[in-house]
């Protein structure tokens, strides 16, 4: 555990950065109706007209999930950058630089700890805005760090997933993050700590086929696209039209792949309740019946 004391330093982040002034209008990407940006923010980026759940930034997720939005972000261990010296139309190192500047994020996963419903919790959030939430060594490192922090704190781990799949620029190192993150889930299991997955739109590829499908409880936001193969790949392979609602959260619920579809506004309460029930062994003494 020495690496934790080496690497994990608390980093307090306060206010959310507002990129768009509140008095502007925007259109719902689903129903196209006009929404005042201020209302959209207040409504957790959910369309007030049709209930469509729009993307959320990492900072928004943390703010919405933790009690009063208060949490401590942790610095994540550094990884070897561009181990394959990969270059497609662009150098991978340049791509990373550009993505970092654009997203203000280090990588496709961020980790924080705080309280949810009064219970200690570690939360890992995937950033789809960072190279489509693809999984490379840094994400693996972040997920392992999150699991280790949870074990250290005897707290549950909650992960919000959003991923387009593998970080191709890291080749097989990317694929190996599937067993690697699976080992982290096993560590939580061995420690008797709850591991809760919240699937958000979209979660596909190697992330789905590893830690995102191994939760003790599997939650999804409404209408989130969740699958192994992406819809276009499937369409190209089977050459038939995909059924209505295919690979959406409700479809997965119907097919027995997840426990529940939960609206964004109801997530903190649901997470708090699940943690309280599942992590009862770590709960404070007064909650237990007197001996």
């Amino acid at each position, binding site marked *: 555990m020495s690496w934790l004391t080496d690497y994990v330093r608390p980093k307090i982040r306060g206010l959310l950065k507002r990129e768009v002034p509140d008095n502007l209008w925007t259109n719902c990407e689903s129903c196209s109706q006009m929404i005042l940006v201020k209302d959209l923010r207040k409504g957790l980026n959910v369309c007030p007209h049709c209930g469509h759940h729009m993307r959320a930034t990492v900072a928004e997720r943390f703010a919405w999930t933790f009690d009063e939005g208060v949490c401590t972000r942790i610095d994540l261990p550094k990884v070897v950058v561009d181990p394959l010296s990969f270059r*497609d139309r662009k150098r991978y190192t340049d791509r990373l630089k550009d993505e970092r500047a654009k997203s203000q994020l280090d990588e496709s996963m961020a980790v924080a700890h705080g309280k949810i419903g009064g219970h200690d919790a570690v939360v890992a959030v995937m950033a789809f805005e960072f190279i489509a939430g693809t999984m490379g*060594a840094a994400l693996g490192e972040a997920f392992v760090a999150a699991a280790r922090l949870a074990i250290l704190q005897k707290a549950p781990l909650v992960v919000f997933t959003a991923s387009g799949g593998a970080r*191709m620029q890291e*080749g*097989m190192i990317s*694929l190996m993050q599937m067993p690697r993150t699976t080992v982290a889930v096993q560590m939580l299991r061995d420690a008797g700590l709850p591991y809760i997955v919240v699937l958000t739109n979209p979660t596909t590829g190697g992330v789905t*086929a590893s830690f995102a499908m191994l939760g003790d409880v599997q939650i999804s936001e409404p209408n989130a696209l969740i699958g192994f*193969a992406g819809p276009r790949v499937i369409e190209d392979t089977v050459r038939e039209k995909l059924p209505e609602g295919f690979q959406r959260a409700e479809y997965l619920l119907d097919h027995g792949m997840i426990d529940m579809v939960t609206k964004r506004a109801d997530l903190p309460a649901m997470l708090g309740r699940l943690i309280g029930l599942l992590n009862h062994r770590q709960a404070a003494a007064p909650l237990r019946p007197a001996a």
Partner: protein
Amino acid sequence: MPPDGFGGGPGGGTWQDSWLCYPHGMRQFLDFEKSVAELENKIDELRHMSGPDGINIAEEIARLTEKSEKQLRVAYAKLTPGQKVQVARHAQRPHTAEYIGTLIQDFTPLAGDRLFGEDKAVIGGIGRFQDLPVVVIGTERGSELESRLEHNFGMARPEGYRKAQRLMELAGRFGMPILTFIDTAGAWPGIDAEARGQAEAIARSIDTCLSAPVPVIATVIGEGGSGGAIALGAGDRVMMLEHAIYSVISPEACASILWRDPKLATSAAEALKLTAQDLLQLHLVDRIIPEPLGGAQRDPEAAIRAVGDAIGAELPDLLSLSGAMLVAQRREKFLVMGRDGLT
């Protein structure tokens, strides 16, 4: 079919082996083996000739044979990643069923996932490897059209991975080492597969493999394609045949996404570092098994024997460890992948 794509994988080319050319008797040659094909054709012709100067013909055959072997040696000593993709997918390379047929005595196939169905893309069962009872699991591509369809070209559905999990658990219960053989373009990207939880099936397969309290040796014998390969690949030892490939995505699909041009699959194959030699250097695989001259497809029996020798060489160390120790070491091995061993 793009001219310099490789075929045979999702996202690129066709299911037919359209990259094969120069049929020479029963042997199928790859485009870069053209001069070898011509020499061997000539040798064939000479063999069918008869005449008074038989001795000269024999000398000529010997000379040409030496020449073609030299060319093969030269070509195979410096195969490009793109050529390795072609070799790894060669239709005449030995398949999982052939490895099992030669290396496993008393092989008894076991079928079904006990949940939905029997997926022949994954074959498995119990038998003896050098007298030791083992569980064998592998993806099987099939060899001619009918059996390829039956095995779905080695692209498994959730039932295949759930059958694998069942067999891995059985291995754990009875203390039998697990040998896996990987040869797949990837998991089947179909509506039915998604409806029955393809992602969960792969995730749970990795999970189960990492937890097996018995030795696990995984061997990539041809193409190791992404999630469908790692589902059977989280072993104590991961070995690759000399010209096998192992990749997070097919070079064709990678090229069409990152280069926006599937014709650049050869560039993607180079960038992805998918050869056994590159992956050994990256500490992602543990052993390279040498192939016979000109690849496993030219001498399947020798390739199968070499794999058997490698498994035989790795097993004793693993058998000396307790189940708990094996699981702990296996987890540690995968826990550092992407952190340690890179420069």
